[in-house]
């Protein structure tokens, strides 16, 4: 709790700082030059990137339905809610293109 109080105080201090809006001299000329020399966008590349994401989504759905089907014929399979939540996480990773973040380890239950 004390640590959170300190964190909030630090953030409050940092919030007071306004970022400078200074612009380097003739920066707009650099931008115009970059735009003129930039290669035109290849729509094929965007299409390929979209296909990759779709492939990951399709894999996640296939894994979910496959596991669900396996669970139908096997009593020891995890409940469907667990599978759906796990696949929602996979979908999030596939759509956002982000790495999964590890959760904090669970505390050990007290010994009886």
């Amino acid at each position, binding site marked *: 709790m004390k640590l959170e109080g300190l964190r909030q105080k630090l953030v409050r201090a*940092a919030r007071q700082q306004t970022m400078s809006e200074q612009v380097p001299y003739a920066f707009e000329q650099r931008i115009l030059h970059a735009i003129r020399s930039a290669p035109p966008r290849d729509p094929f590349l965007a299409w390929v990137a979209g296909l990759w994401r779709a492939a990951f989504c399709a894999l996640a759905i296939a894994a979910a339905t496959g596991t669900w089907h396996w669970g139908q014929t096997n009593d020891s399979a995890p409940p469907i809610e667990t599978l759906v939540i796990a696949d929602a996480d996979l979908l999030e990773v596939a759509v956002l293109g982000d790495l999964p973040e590890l959760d904090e380890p669970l505390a050990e239950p007290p010994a009886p």
Partner: protein
Amino acid sequence: MARLLCPGPEQILAAFMEPSDASVIAAIRAGDSGRFEELVCRYQPRLFATARRYARRQDEIEDIVQQVFVKVFQNLDSWRGDAPFEHWIMRIAVRVCYDALRAHQRNREDSMTQLSPEESDWLEHHAAAPEASGIDAAAARSLVARAFEQLAPASRLILTLLELEDRPVKEIAALTGWSVPLVKVRAFRARAEMRRILTRMGVEKYL
């Protein structure tokens, strides 16, 4: 060399008479790409201020702003005009900053240094009077900057938008493209991550 932007009466008058974003964009779409300079001049101060939150070195900041404008130019046809152009350009800016953070993380070396004397003084002052406002705000800002350097890209982005820029969750969701619950979850995790980093930096002995 930097230019200070201090509008005089003529510039204020010109601001009322200057063409709208929509009309400038229409001209660019019609083939007059030179008018893109007007958009650059209009939005570059704000983009520099945004980029300075995510990068320290001047060349990195300039690269981020340049990348934003190049993306804006390349995607100008996709701006439909149903939302203000400013919101659209800020969404692109946040996305580019996030990508820059992720690229920076891959090349980053773990640099957990000792607390500076000013930072230690600030923490001692906090330990003596936790409710009082900080004496040396620069030391606190330096501590926050170093802690932010260690955060994961998503955590840094979310804490910058939520806690440093004080933006509402809905606006952050619109800027990042994440859902509102995802923003809340990531904010919760980011705060916990920052507390862990502060602990690693050794601030706990001042509590």
